């Protein structure tokens, strides 16, 4: 048996060694990477399996096809992983190894993707960090303005409460980068309203089901003491279901931008809510930036902003939410101050989503022309 194992191991070593040789010369010959018909683009997302990611993938695919028709992209590929860093590193290693020009990377771990960045740099692959901000020298970051997202929702709720009342909070996922950027902003805004009391705060893990469980617990514990609900995105439907199951009519809550939620809001008389988009189109914005950079263009002065994950690194394009949905759609409301976002009414939001499935998200972002205008 020992001999057999030894023999197998020797065979394995020989196989591996044979893999190590013979390829380098062939690759060197074609290593100039002059694009024929366009650039090779890859996108790796750090999360999968929810409607937001599905929309991100659809938007990105469609945008790549448009660039393909224009002859700027010859090939593209998207890979998903569900917060599995090991899988993402394996995926990205294979992508970089296949000779891509640009990697749009939504990091599964904002600190753990260093090996990918180093490998990409060694292979002259442009890296655009996307969606979840992460700070790495030699990369660019294109992400949504997640702190503004939180600030709008919290300020809207505080204004609706006239600065006093009891709220419950349903946050995202502990340790998630966006969540950790949003929660301090909520705390900061709420600190301006000392008469708003947080009865309880829990994590909904960006899951309708978990959010429903948490809200059910809140309703059974605090009942009619709850004046309002402050929740992050993609959990609004679950919260509404908890209210429905408890036989209580919701009156004030922050919602989300999925069509299913917007429809449910419309069908709930007396409910005042606010939805701020966290745009899945951000992947397309990253692609627009990548195409410009790959063509050798440079950013205009003052365009790049501080990285949200490390303000000392100036390498980011931070995009405001595309839409803020309220019943009135008031562009001059206090929470809209200093934003490029568009305030729209609930009816307008539903009109924008008229032909879409219930799982579709209200979505927007910088147009290609707007991105092109950021470059010299």
């Amino acid at each position, binding site marked *: *048996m020992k001999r057999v194992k030894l023999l197998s191991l020797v065979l394995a070593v020989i196989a591996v060694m044979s*893999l*190590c040789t013979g*390829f380098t010369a062939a690759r060197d010959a074609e290593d100039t990477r002059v694009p024929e018909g366009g650039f090779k683009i890859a996108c790796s997302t750090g999360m999968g399996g929810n409607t937001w990611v599905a929309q991100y993938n659809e938007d990105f695919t469609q945008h790549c096809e448009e660039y393909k028709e224009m002859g700027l992209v010859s090939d593209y590929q998207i890979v998903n992983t569900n917060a599995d*860093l090991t899988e993402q590193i394996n995926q990205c290693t*294979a992508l970089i190894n296949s000779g891509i020009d640009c990697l749009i990377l939504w990091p599964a771990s904002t*600190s753990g993707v260093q090996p990918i960045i180093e490998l990409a740099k060694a292979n002259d692959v442009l890296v655009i960090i996307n969606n979840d901000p992460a700070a790495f020298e030699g990369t660019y970051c294109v992400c949504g303005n997640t702190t503004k997202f939180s600030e709008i929702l919290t300020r809207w709720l505080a204004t609706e409460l006239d600065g006093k009342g009891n709220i419950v909070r349903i946050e995202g996922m502990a*340790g*998630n980068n966006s969540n950790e950027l949003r929660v301090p902003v909520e705390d900061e805004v709420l600190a301006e309203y000392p008469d708003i009391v947080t009865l309880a705060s829990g994590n909904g893990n960006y899951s309708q089901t978990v959010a429903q469980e948490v809200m059910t617990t809140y309703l059974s514990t605090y009942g009619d003491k709850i004046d309002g609900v402050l929740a992050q995105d993609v959990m609004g439907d679950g919260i509404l279901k908890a209210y429905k199951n408890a036989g209580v009519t919701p009156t004030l809550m922050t919602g989300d931008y999925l069509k299913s939620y917007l429809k449910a809001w419309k069908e709930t008389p007396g409910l005042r809510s606010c939805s701020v988009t966290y745009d899945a189109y951000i992947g397309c914005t990253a692609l627009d930036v990548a195409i410009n950079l790959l063509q050798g263009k440079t950013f205009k002065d003052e365009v790049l902003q501080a990285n949200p994950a490390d303000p000392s690194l100036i390498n980011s394009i931070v995009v405001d939410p595309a839409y803020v949905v309220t019943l009135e759609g008031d562009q001059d409301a206090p929470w809209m101050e200093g934003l490029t976002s568009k305030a729209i009414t609930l009816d307008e939001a539903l009109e924008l989503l008229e032909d879409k499935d219930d799982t579709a998200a209200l979505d927007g972002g910088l147009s290609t022309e707007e991105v092109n205008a950021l470059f010299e």
Partner: protein
Amino acid sequence: MRRPLSYYLRKLLKWSALPAFLLMAASFLIVKYLITGTNINASYITSFLNTNTAVICMSIGVTAVILTGGIDISLGALVSLCNVVAVQLMMHGVHYLPALIIVLLMAVAAGAVNGAVVSYLHVPPLLTTFATQTVFAGLALTVMRVPGGRIAGECTSFYYGKLFGFLPPTILFILVPVVIWKIYRRSPEGTRLYAVGCDEGKAFLSGINVERCRMFAYCFAGFCAGMGAIAYTFYVSAGDPDLGNSLDMRAISAAVIGGVSLSGGYGDVAGGIFGCLFFGMLTNMIVSFKVNVFTQNLLEALILLAGVLMAIAVRNRSMSLKGGLKREGQ
């Protein structure tokens, strides 16, 4: 005396790690010969090993636990905890050597807690490790709420360097648990561990100290998770409280693909190692096939299912060759 070829063939067919080895070899060959544009060279293999060392270490550890008839789903969270503790210690000025020793001791202690609860309080392993998984994950978040930090430069330099001028240092992190396991496996205690997994009652009646065998398995699993965490920390050079979250199932699946019986008493760590390498190559294959993003998971799951079925079929065949229920450890 020279044995006939059929003898070695039978031995090979009985090798519990054979399915995983074949899967790994097949996936390497597919990536090399069927997928164009994949540049497999020494640097690729080093990078591949670097990425998968943590899960390989975990798989070695979880194999030991499964062999006793148990399971440990807390190892991923333990990897996260070790990672953030190591980074925080170094960030607070602790020299990397004592920091790493503290992390390893902590990992073994965490394994000992699992082992003690399972062995002496007789709480089912799944329930125990589910509870400790939550505890470890919570502790990791307490130690470091947001991903970040840096480790000592020496650690990164070591990990990305070469041993004796050609060996990737990551091999060390795999070799240490393998050597410990091999020494233990060859001792009478190793045989007893397999006996506990085969039939706990009979093992007890035979005078085997069942609790001690289980304690070793869980402590060893903790140690392996600690080694994996150190390797991963060196690799990514930073801390993340969610770093190991997804690794549990990958390590357990790799062990099963590697021919380890979930009911205990059959299998070896080599299978888990090959299983992990197969997992890594599978990801590369899926990427290289340029499958549509919406069908990647489906295809990966189907290939995995085929792998598991193959592993089980070969294991059953191997066990029947060994004669009924006679297990490797007996």
